[in-house]
């Protein structure tokens, strides 16, 4: 209840504010202060975390660096604000941050009532289930979980999705609800439940903390859509474009085979598609029309690599999480990540 009323209060207050903030030109603001202020998750494995030295790493973090590279040509000109689920929207509305890149699910109500605009989907997530294959060797599908005890964190949409799905499929189950995700994970590891449900990316992280990761299997069903993406304040179309096209540029670069190591030689390519992406076409105005320099994609790819490189480094084979691309593969490779053409 309290969360709800706070959100309403924040919404009302933001309505009064959007008028004054919206008119502000975010890009020139950022340029004059000399850095991009980016809101990220406090700690979510693979998406946003601090390494031993306190450096930010992760998929969401790298997206911020890509935007900074597009604007300044320098990925280090970004400052991060760690945000909790409660304060993320307020931080964006109040102008404390310029981009919210904090594994936030894109929904219509957030687009309409919170005064923010989502720019794309950095990671297609969805709620899944994990079981211990040694204990339940025959279970290959969620539908076989009849009568199972399921660990879940309270107060999230996760709990609601779980109830909806099992009701719709007429399966009996006993939910064991925990206050936080950490407690739910710990209880599952201690063997309190037959299955554990969470967003799939979180399941992979939880698996690393179990005593025998190899025994744990993530079931194929995904029972909810959680498209996680960055968002900006409503009312500044120019800034929205820059962040949106940074996202598309990451995808287009991967599709065109442009990566961190070959970006310089690709600049000499005669392929018209690549020339347009990298801004080497004669008389191109794509970058300057966005309010950036024409080599903006070169800067992005040099800084963070293309989408695939960012993914593999933080979530995939380069990380202990080892999440497969799945639906997050490019549309050309059976996934649904589709980079709108740069032309």
């Amino acid at each position: 209840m309290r969360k709800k009323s706070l959100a309403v209060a924040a919404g009302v207050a933001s309505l009064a504010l959007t008028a004054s903030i919206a008119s502000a030109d975010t890009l020139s603001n950022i340029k004059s202060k000399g850095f991009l202020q980016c809101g990220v998750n406090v700690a979510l494995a693979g998406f946003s975390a601090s390494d031993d030295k306190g450096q930010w790493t992760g998929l969401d973090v790298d997206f911020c660096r890509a935007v900074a590279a597009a604007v300044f040509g320098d990925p280090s000109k970004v400052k991060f604000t760690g945000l909790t689920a409660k304060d993320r929207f307020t931080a964006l509305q109040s102008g404390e941050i310029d981009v919210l890149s904090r594994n936030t699910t894109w929904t219509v109500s957030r687009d309409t009532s919170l005064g923010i605009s989502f720019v794309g989907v950095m990671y297609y997530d969805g709620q899944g289930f994990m079981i211990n294959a040694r204990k339940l060797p025959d279970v290959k599908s969620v539908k076989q979980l009849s009568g199972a005890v399921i660990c879940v964190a309270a107060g999230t949409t996760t709990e609601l999705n779980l109830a909806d799905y099992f009701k719709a499929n007429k399966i009996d189950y006993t939910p064991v609800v925990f206050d936080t995700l950490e407690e739910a994970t710990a209880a599952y590891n201690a063997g309190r439940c037959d299955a554990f449900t969470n967003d799939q990316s979180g399941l992979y992280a939880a698996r690393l903390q179990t005593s025998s990761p190899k025994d744990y299997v993530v079931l194929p069903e995904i029972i909810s859509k959680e498209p996680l993406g960055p968002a900006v304040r409503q009312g500044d179309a120019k800034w929205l474009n820059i962040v949106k096209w940074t996202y598309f540029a990451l995808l287009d670069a991967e599709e065109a085979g442009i990566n961190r190591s070959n970006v310089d030689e690709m600049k000499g390519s005669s392929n018209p598609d690549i020339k347009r992406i990298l801004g080497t076409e004669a008389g191109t105005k794509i970058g300057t029309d966005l309010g950036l320099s024409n080599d903006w994609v070169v800067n992005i790819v040099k800084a963070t690599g293309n989408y695939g490189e960012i993914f593999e480094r933080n979530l995939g084979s380069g990380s202990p999480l080892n999440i497969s691309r799945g639906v997050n593969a490019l549309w050309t490779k059976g996934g649904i990540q589709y980079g709108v053409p740069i032309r």
Partner: protein
Amino acid sequence: MQQHDIAWVRTDMTLAQPAPNSEVGILAWMRKNLFATRADMLLTVVAVIIAAWALPQILSWLFFNAVWVGTDRTACLTIEQGGQLPAGWSAACWPFVSNRFGYFMFGRYPLEERWRVILAGAIFVGLLVPLLIPRAPLKRANAILFFGIYPFIAFVLLVGGVFGLPYVETPLWGGLMVTLVLAYVGIVVSLPLGIVLALGRRSRMPTIKLLSVIFIETVRGVPLVTVLFMAAFMLPLFVPPGTTFDKLLRALIGVALFSSAYMAEVVRGGLQAMPKGQYEGADSLGLSYWQKTGLIIMPQALKLVIPGIVNSFIGLFKDTTLVLVISMFDLLGIVKQGISGDANWATPQTARTGYVFAAVIFWIFCFGMSRYSQYVERRLETGHGR
């Protein structure tokens, strides 16, 4: 020499004899303290059994079986989890703490500037220790330095931006350093402010009394989390866009005001315990209000409530962990961040190790405060205590 009627009277003192063997030594101590009655015996035996059962496990988890060196999660994984350790291994994973120690202490404070935090800490200890030792000289000068001058030195050192020190913004601060800054400011502000509020609440001037009551009851009526949340997120929505208040400053003000309200009630308890005769005696000597309060009432009242004051301090020290909800990272917050966020350290033992580390650090500080307060109580004991 006088003759006695009775048969024999001893005329010289007996030499002191050593206590009988049954009254000295470890056996006697055990008999008196551990096995005095049947109930005591039972309790002792049960306690010994519990200790014998738990201690080896605790020690082997903490020390004997623990992993001490490593650079990432593989150091703390068993073979079936993808590491080197024997199957079934379960003990502390200290490399998680040692690799991140600097981060746990200073947060994201730039590496090359950390000497400033260490220097500020060293000055803090250098001023605090002589202040706590009753025999050390120059108490007054020391106190002025610690409470009056030190905050400015620390501010310049930690924030920088002057004297050629690069500016370090507070969002980069974290870890134990934030815990200590919050606790120090909370303690240094709340005691004087609490005294003023307590006096205000007992004042005969209606405006002052009303204001004090309103402040105390309002602040005590809401949880600290709410105060912090309002200070951190609602405030920026009500000030003109572009004006930024430092978040740490907002949290500091929130914590200081909150603890002042509690402190005021503790001090008021001491004031109420003063017999009326003390006030009347002071009045009859012709002392002014401030003389009466400063010389007669307050020294006695504060002495009475030392346990309450220290209790508030310890509570405040632990309450600083609540700044986590406004995305500031005190010691506990930063440990939690490493546990849930860093896939490079995701092992079954990371969470336990991290929390044990945080708990030990908190315990050291709180236990230290508690012991010192008991020492001060004993020193000031003048017949009020038992």
